[in-house]
């Protein structure tokens, strides 16, 4: 008699999932306006003076949204992110699919890294990539290590098979001295 029970439970769970889908599947080509994150919201270490600051806004519009992440993946290729970071494994630039974040792994950190550039070779793309596209790329970068909800993460590309696609990547728990992103997967 466990069958109806189970079915009911899974149906309920799925109902919740599908409601969440409203946001996840929205396709807003103009991008979503993101509140001012500013440098104040970004930290690059885990050491704080006094109490730790509250985390910055989560921008679920971007990293919970399949369309934006997918656009981010497209832009990651178009804007040559992949020629330095490969498909996440790294090349000239560091790998993006592992659990180490040199300059912070929150969406805001990645956004800042793309805009500002970093001293050891990361170019600055300020003025070169419009704001909403930077958020999209940042969201995609987080999906590389499984930080975004599975149901919103991209599947394989019509391309050479380099690695399991983002939605199949196990979530890497960010380690080391820099803050990781919020665990959206656990919250969904």
């Amino acid at each position, binding site marked *: 008699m466990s069958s109806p029970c189970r079915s009911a439970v899974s149906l309920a769970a799925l109902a919740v999932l599908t409601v969440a889908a409203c946001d996840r599947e929205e*396709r807003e*080509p*103009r*991008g979503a306006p993101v509140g001012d994150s500013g440098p104040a919201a970004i930290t690059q270490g885990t050491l704080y003076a006094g109490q730790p600051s509250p985390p910055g806004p989560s921008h679920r519009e971007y990293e919970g949204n399949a369309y934006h992440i997918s656009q981010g993946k*497209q832009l990651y290729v*178009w*804007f040559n992110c992949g020629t330095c970071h490969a498909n996440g494994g790294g090349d000239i630039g560091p790998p993006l699919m592992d659990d180490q974040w040199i300059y912070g792994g929150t969406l805001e950190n990645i956004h800042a890294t793309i805009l500002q550039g970093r001293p050891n070779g990361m170019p600055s793309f300020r*003025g*070169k*990539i*419009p*704001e*909403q*596209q930077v958020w999209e790329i940042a969201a995609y970068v987080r999906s590389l290590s499984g930080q975004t909800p599975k149901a919103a993460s991209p599947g394989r590309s*019509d391309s050479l098979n380099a690695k399991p696609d983002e939605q199949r990547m196990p979530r890497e728990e960010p380690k080391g001295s820099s803050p990781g992103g919020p665990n959206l997967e656990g919250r969904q």
Partner: protein
Amino acid sequence: MSRALRIGSLGLALCLALPGCQGVQSALDPAGHQAGRIAGLWWLFLGVLAVVYLVVLAGLLIAASRPRRRGVLPNGPSFAREERIERRLTGGLTAWAVGTGAIILTLTGLSYAVDRDILGLTDKAELEIEVTAKQWWWQVKYNDPVPSRSFETANEIRLPVGVPVRIVLKSQDVIHSFWVPNLHGKTDLIPGRVNETTLVADREGRFRGQCAEFCGFQHANMALDVVAMPRDRFDAWRESQLSPAAAPADDLARQGQQVFLSAACVMCHTIHGTTAASRVGPDLTHVASRPSLAAGTLPYSKGNLAGWIADPQRIKPGNQMPITSLSPDQLQGVVAYLDSLK
């Protein structure tokens, strides 16, 4: 009952009387050899099949309204079959089936002959154009045995009149379909495959082509202009396309070029003669010489160009050109610069 027929003939009359069949995107207004043959075949099919249809309708009409023998069985149906009538009807059926077969066979043969004829043009191509469909625009490359004499343009194809042109069709994203009804039927562009078709324009003119396979968000606004021109004008045009972009002539344009090369534009577009050489979006080296903008969405004009750059997502929602945050001054400069790229 024959309302369909009446509406049909009305429609056709309409089509013939009004500029209906004429048009920049009409299969019934052929301007090329293949489209001509196909249109001919179409009228032939239409004639034959219209007769068939009329026969069926007449049969139906008579069957429904002819006078009846009465009273075979007062209350119930006449379940007793009459041999004579059955035999006659069976004869009719046989004749009908044979007739259908004969018509079908004839039409198949005609269709095959036209198909062969159209294909015969393939080997006679003198020019090769490579068309790559992208979501949602057309990249057009004129190939030449001397690599430096090949060039790229976007969303427009110019053809010399009377010269068969091989069109090599490719796609890097999803399936599209290349269709210029006035010149020829459609051929799909399929990722992982290379298709070919041949175009030949019999007369000068400007025609409109459009993607005919559903390709996502902006399938509706993925058109291209096809311009057939005399050989000498075509050659002149070709030479002009081979030249690098003109240097900006005035301060506004110069400032616009600076903006172009330092803002988001340079991430996606190519302008020969500058450092802009990205291939995400259309090659803009001679953008101001093209008839339309945004893959046939807007006719080319300075105003439309400004509107398009200012908010491409309003004009063509979901297309890959983002909203950039250019200041009005910057926008003016970029527009002035691009408008100088004849």
